[in-house]
């Protein structure tokens, strides 16, 4: 911007251009605040099923499981996938892992089978877990999570197909609106030009 002679107008001009481009981008390709994922899992493949939601931000996580006899849940700090590695030490093995990630919502959904003794699985998680609420045929867990936290549900299938629905709604996020971004950008460009003229005159 060689036509600007002073540093401050150059900086303000740069900010203005950035605000306009970024607010247009945010409207077209920006963050989504809701994501949902459903699968039917083969209930015969493993004695226990572990379903987890791992978000990057805060929000409300909801897991709905049908076709199981019992469901336990817990909030975890950190990544539950590392916990699964440690579960190997208890003779538990993860099989048939299915996952789905949604970058725009910043969430990672995962469902995995736990092979081994299901009683060990239950004992391994006991003390930390609570029972999920049962509504009709399905178990529902709905919890709000903070960043660096995730939610894990351990379920014991009693039918050949287990239906799992996981969804996540981002809370506490907001960005500048398109109109405000463009207006602010244009106002800053005008201000930068005026400031440059005034600063040049005063010399």
């Amino acid at each position, binding site marked *: 911007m060689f036509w600007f002679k002073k540093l401050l107008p150059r900086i303000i001009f*740069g900010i203005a251009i*950035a605000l306009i481009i970024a607010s247009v*981008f945010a409207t077209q390709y920006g963050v989504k605040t809701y994501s949902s994922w459903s699968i039917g899992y083969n209930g015969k493949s493993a004695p226990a099923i572990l379903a987890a939601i791992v978000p990057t931000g805060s929000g409300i996580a909801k897991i709905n499981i049908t076709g199981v006899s019992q469901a336990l849940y817990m909030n975890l700090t950190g990544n539950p996938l590392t916990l699964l590695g440690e579960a190997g030490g208890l003779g538990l093995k993860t099989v048939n892992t299915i996952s789905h990630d949604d*970058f725009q919502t910043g969430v990672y959904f995962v469902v995995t089978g736990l092979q081994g003794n299901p009683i060990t699985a239950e004992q391994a998680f006991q003390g930390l877990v609570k029972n999920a609420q049962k509504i009709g045929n399905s178990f529902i867990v709905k919890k709000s999570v903070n960043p660096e936290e995730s939610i894990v549900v351990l379920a014991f299938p009693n039918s050949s197909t287990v239906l799992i629905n996981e969804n996540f709604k981002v809370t506490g996020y907001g960005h500048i609106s398109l109109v405000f971004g463009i207006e602010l950008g244009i106002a800053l460009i005008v201000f930068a030009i005026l400031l440059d003229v005034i600063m040049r005159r005063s010399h």
Partner: protein
Amino acid sequence: MAAKRSWELILIDLWDSLRPPSFDIMLILVATLSGILSVLEPVTTPPAVANAVLGAVLFVTSLYLALRASSDLVNLVQTGVMPLYLTYPISRRVTSLIIYLTRVFLPSLILLGIPAIVSGIMLYPVVGKNIGEFLIMWIAYLIQAQLYGSIFILASNKTKSTGTSAVISITGYFGYTATSVILALIGSIDNIGILNKIANSMGFYNVLYDMLTGISTPLWEILVVPIIFLALFITYIIYFTRRFEP
């Protein structure tokens, strides 16, 4: 009088260090990229906004510093501008501080400050929750940039060759960041806690992020980056004051 002369030297060297159009291109680029990065994934706390945006900006800032504070500074020596700077009636220590200010501190302040302003405006409902935490994270990134900048400026003063100082600067930067990644990798594969902690402590922003999000952090982790920076910075001042021959 010395203060006035120092101010003149700051303005002259700052004009060279921030001269258009390269700085302006860089400025628009980092500002726009940071605006876009801030709306790519949902970040819901101020420290997370800082990490999402400033991590990438720090990389760009480091490359800019590697050119301006390192190979460009050697140009000053080779074109005879540095001897001219040294004829100013101010002490060498003040001159060395001025060069650090105009070549490392102010460019990094601007290049990291503008993305912080842009992402702060873009995500004002999130950043507004706790501006203090956002500022702490920003300062952490600024201190990290000073660490890289002092490697660069020391390399250029010592070698006085454009190519050599650029190569040393970029390998120094790459070596530092790659070491941190490798330590973290070995630490996580073999489950060695101390390696993870060392890797974590090599990024000042990691340590402050952990502290702000309530993850327990040993005291020494906070000191690693500031101590390395101060050691390099003091070495640079002493070298420039006592040994440097333009």
